[in-house]
């Protein structure tokens, strides 16, 4: 049959045609979305909000660990040295302590300074003045490096420091540390839990939205399949639609999350000042934003893949 040969020739067009078809489909699917701006926007917004929540949460978590470093500065060990230790010996000890891995910084409070401060702040001014000699020892304030995952480490450090021969007593405001850890635990658990819920929500929302969107085009899928399209061909425009949803949803999520972080920044700055920390609330880094958008695109693609595949299976001949 000469006609069928001619057909074949026209069909075996240069390989370029395949890519042109891809590009056409990509743009056509964008055109399809823009023809229903309201519903496209709603779907995009749902995806964006679903993504923005865990993203902001992640940024907050990221920042929290920095804040908690600030908090850790508040946790310090006071080494009360033996009364007989001179200031010079104290400074020598201080130099030695600085070399400890577990110790972040040390600060000497000479006994004279301590007395003056104590008089000023304790309200015992008069009473202490009656004392002939300074009853206070030199004190070294040690700021430990706090490893959040190993709260026992700090206890070990305290024990170690207490055993130094120059040291009379090593004391930690343990109450404060315990509270800190308890709070951190709640925060972590809470964020972990909310992240799971949100992760689930994102998957469900994106999946469901794309599923419903595609269900609306069930008839279309059926008809195209009936006139000889392969599954890959049918899937293509839907995958691109999913991709566009993912891309625009991811971008919008980035904007939303940056906006949220901006709103929080003010309050955090004030808190940081109180801890005399130079901590600054930061949004997503560029790499993180790219990851977000990439993930969003992936979700869009995966959601539409699943949704179309289900529809395609429903119309196989039996």
């Amino acid at each position, binding site marked *: *049959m000469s006609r069928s040969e001619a057909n074949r020739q*026209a069909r075996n067009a240069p390989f370029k045609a*395949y890519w042109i078809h891809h590009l056409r489909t990509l743009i056509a699917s964008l055109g399809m979305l823009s023809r229903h701006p309201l519903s496209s926007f709603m779907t995009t917004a749902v995806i964006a909000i679903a993504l923005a929540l865990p993203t902001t949460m992640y940024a907050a978590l990221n920042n929290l660990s920095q804040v908690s470093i600030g908090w850790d500065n508040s946790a310090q060990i006071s080494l009360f040295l033996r009364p007989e230790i001179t200031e010079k010996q104290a400074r020598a000890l201080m130099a030695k302590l600085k070399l400890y891995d577990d110790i972040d910084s040390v600060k000497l409070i000479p006994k004279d300074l301590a007395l003056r401060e104590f008089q000023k702040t304790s309200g015992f001014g008069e009473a202490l003045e009656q004392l002939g000699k300074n009853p206070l020892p030199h004190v070294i304030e040690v700021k430990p490096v706090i490893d959040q995952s190993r709260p026992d480490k700090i206890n070990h450090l305290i024990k170690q420091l207490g055993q130094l021969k120059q040291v009379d007593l090593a004391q930690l405001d343990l109450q404060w540390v315990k509270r800190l850890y308890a709070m951190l635990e709640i925060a972590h658990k809470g964020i972990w839990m909310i992240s799971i819920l949100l992760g689930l929500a994102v998957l469900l929302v994106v999946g469901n939205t794309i599923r419903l969107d595609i269900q609306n085009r069930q008839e279309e899928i*059926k008809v195209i399949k009936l006139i*000889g399209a392969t599954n890959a061909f049918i899937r293509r425009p839907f995958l691109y639609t999913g991709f566009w949803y993912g891309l625009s949803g991811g971008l919008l999520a980035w904007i939303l999350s940056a906006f949220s972080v901006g709103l929080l920044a003010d309050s955090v700055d004030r808190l940081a000042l109180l801890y005399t920390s130079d901590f600054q609330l930061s949004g997503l880094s560029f790499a993180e934003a790219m990851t977000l958008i990439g993930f969003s695109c992936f979700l869009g693609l995966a959601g539409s893949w699943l949704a179309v595949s289900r529809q395609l299976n429903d119309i*196989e*001949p*039996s």
Partner: protein
Amino acid sequence: MIRFDNVSKRYPGGHEALTNVSFHLPRGQMAYLTGHSGAGKSTLLKLIALIERPTRGNLLLDGVNLSQVSNHKVPYVRRNIGIIFQNHHLLYDRSVFDNVAMPLIIAGYQHREIGKRVRAALDQVGLLSKEKCEPITLSGGEQQRVGIARAIVHKPPLLLADEPTGNLDPELSRDIMQLFERFNQVGVTVLIASHDLDLIQQMGKPVISLSQGMLVHNDLQEVADVTL
């Protein structure tokens, strides 16, 4: 081209739509399929296009046993068939042009080629002026003709038509039947399910008749005898 060998089709509900149907439609032959409403005409055409699969019996298309065609390969079988559906099955979210172009796009034709062929097909059914319309704005008969244009646009070696003139006036019906005849003259095998007994008689082609899913009349046997 098409050989039915004791084919039966029972739908999930339990209704047997076709019972032990056997016939042979040689390549290049044109035939009509008649029968009362619910006789099984559409079912028979659906089996050929692999929209349904037979419950029993063998169905050979172009020498290929269709029960051995995997779901994966079904699209490639369908591309060699032009199908006109009883209920049009148009895509209502794209233009008449895009509807008719669909089989060509699926087969990967080039852009220039597509435009030429689509317009030729639309011209043959008298709808060249409606090229840019949405199918929903067409009359019933116009929609049916879009379906016909879509089935013939890629010049398939086999044409199946299910009630292609149900919504057309007698004059247009005759035109369309003559269009199918012209296709047949250049070698296309054609099988048309139709109720229009008067028109069928005028065309003078062999007729297969179904009743309650059974073959009750078959002109093709004689045809086979003649061609043998």
